[in-house]
């Protein structure tokens, strides 16, 4: 399948200077983002998923720096751009939706003003035309009575509505890539489902390429085409949505899937990952997940596993895929994933 690569990360290493010590946040990631796909990046807090995406938009914290590696976007390397150059890309070509809609909007300006600001900067649309476009955008993100809503301020909106406004601002400039950093974590389950559906329909309408960052594997089943699982600053497994859910290979992916409450049975212990993520100040030897892996192999502590190709689209960094490794079957819970169905019984909403 020949698909155009929009963004290409090669062997990226990112470090943070912290009190004279260096924290190795991204440890050699290579990743291709294809035109029109939606890629979910999943991992625990501290796994580096947000740091990785901040590199795409030039918002790395002041004490962070790219030590080596490149990110190709639009024919150039964007790892060492100046602030002036970033202003061309950020918002216009790569846009981002933050986790908390309460803090990402300006409380002092009406939302109409905030949408028009984006239009003015990136597309030079002003005055009546901008107003018209803003109304159109609000309708697109499912806000009723857009003309009245334009004049209102963020505090007059509910959390879900605010996130819709943030999405409207993000897509206002027709970006190529839209990064969603935990866009539904602060929201209720019902609103979360609506926002996910909205993102999906916008992706088709605007031809967006989505990068979806979350810690909850449960929410990405519907929205993601491909899933990258991150652990300790590295992508340990990447594959299509079906491959990750139905045929996961890395023990960490197994652990993440097994700990979902949807897979638990009442009265029994829910699977939980033991231990804590590794200290990224210290060099990591071997497989970073080995100390928390109940069936770690001896080699896991010595050598870092390379990618083993499972299929054309699926690869994982684990020695278990080596031909000499013992056969270890994934935990039972995740073999039953296929049987999880709608939880509402027969009287559900499928009519």
């Amino acid at each position: 399948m020949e698909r155009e690569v929009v963004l290409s990360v090669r062997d990226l290493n990112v470090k943070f200077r912290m009190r004279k010590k260096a924290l190795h946040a991204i440890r050699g990631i290579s990743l291709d983002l294809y035109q029109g796909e939606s890629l979910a990046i999943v991992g625990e807090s501290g796994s580096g998923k947000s740091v990785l995406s901040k590199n795409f938009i030039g918002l790395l914290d002041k004490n962070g720096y790219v030590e080596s590696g490149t990110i190709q976007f639009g024919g150039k390397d964007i790892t060492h751009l100046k602030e002036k150059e970033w202003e061309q890309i950020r918002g216009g070509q790569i846009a981002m939706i933050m986790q908390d809609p309460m803090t990402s909007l300006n409380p002092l300006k009406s939302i109409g003003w905030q949408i028009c600001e984006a239009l003015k900067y990136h597309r030079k649309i002003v005055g009546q035309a901008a107003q018209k476009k803003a109304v159109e955008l609000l309708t697109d993100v499912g806000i009723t009575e857009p003309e009245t809503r334009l004049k209102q301020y963020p505090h007059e909106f509910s959390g879900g509505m605010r996130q819709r406004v943030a999405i409207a601002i993000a897509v206002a400039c027709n970006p190529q890539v839209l990064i969603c950093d935990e866009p539904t974590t602060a929201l209720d389950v019902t609103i979360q489902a609506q926002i996910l559906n909205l993102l999906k329909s916008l992706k088709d309408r605007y031809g967006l390429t989505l990068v979806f960052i979350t810690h909850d594997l449960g929410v990405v089943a519907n929205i993601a085409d491909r899933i990258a699982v991150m652990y300790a600053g590295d992508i340990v497994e990447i594959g299509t949505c079906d491959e990750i859910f139905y045929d996961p290979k890395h023990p960490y992916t197994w652990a993440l899937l097994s700990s979902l409450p949807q897979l638990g049975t009442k009265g029994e212990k829910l699977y939980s990952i033991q231990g804590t993520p590794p200290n990224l100040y210290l060099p990591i030897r071997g497989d970073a997940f080995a100390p928390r892996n109940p069936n770690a192999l001896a080699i896991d502590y010595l050598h870092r596993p390379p990618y083993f190709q499972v299929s054309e689209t699926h690869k994982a960094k684990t020695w278990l895929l080596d031909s000499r490794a013992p056969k270890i079957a994934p935990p039972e819970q995740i073999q039953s994933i296929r049987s999880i169905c709608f939880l509402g019984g027969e009287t559900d909403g499928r009519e």
Partner: protein
Amino acid sequence: MVENKEVLLSVKDLKVAFGAKKHSFEAVRGISFDIYKGETFGLVGESGSGKTTVGRAIIRLIPVSGGEIIFNGERISGKIPRALDKKVIRNIQMIFQDPMASLNERAKVDYIVKEGLLNTEKGLSAQEYENRVQKALMDVGLLPEFAGRFPHEFSGGQRQRIGIARALIMKPSFIIADEPISALDVSIRAQVLNLLSNLQKERGLTYLFIAHDLSVMRFISDRIAVIHKGRLVEMAETEKLFQHPLHPYTQALLSAIPLPNPEAEKQKKLKIYDPACQDYSTDPPVWAEAAEGHFILANQAELKKYREVLQHAR
């Protein structure tokens, strides 16, 4: 399910209003339920539905404006004697949602956990206090030496454990857990959920578990009540509720649960609850029992329909 049904807490027609007179807003509009000894009772609703207000009213953080709350046979709402107030504080404890915000940043873990004891069990020796704190910390899977540290030195999951230790040290019989895991990572959620259910088994605790996520509820609750705009709309045993959700709002909540199965998720149809689908202008809804233990807010016509559905399903 709990066999011998001894009612521990009974909420009768509870009403809570904020503000005065013209500006008053009724957040809880007359809800009733019983919680039995040893069970986990789940209260589910969206933000703004009043679920947290119910929990806070029970623990006497917010005054009630109508109805009453009965705990262990004694009324604990409204004006009560001091001695009873102390008893309530000892017996009912709360675990809060955000472990980042609910711990005093300037106090050491030792003091945070001990504070309740200092107020209710005066005159213990320093050694006894220390022993109790260390035991509480070990009960929740933390090391005793953590007592000398400050909250910022801990991760989110560990902080939530400190919050649980603080509740446990009072030896309560009833714990209100207000969204104890929604601020935590998925992998840590499992640890905290396991801890809560272990503690329940060991000590026969009763939980009121407040959350917006039904998938977690299914794992931990014996019975679930669904709250919408300050009124309960449906209450049943967990599996019954999942098998036969009757109220359209419950169905909408269930349809919103994300499924970790791409195939099922792609076929799933999201339901959105529209209150206009019910016509209550002539026939107002009442809180009635549609089948044994399965309560629902419905008018007479709907109730008839629901009873048929349940009969048919059996």
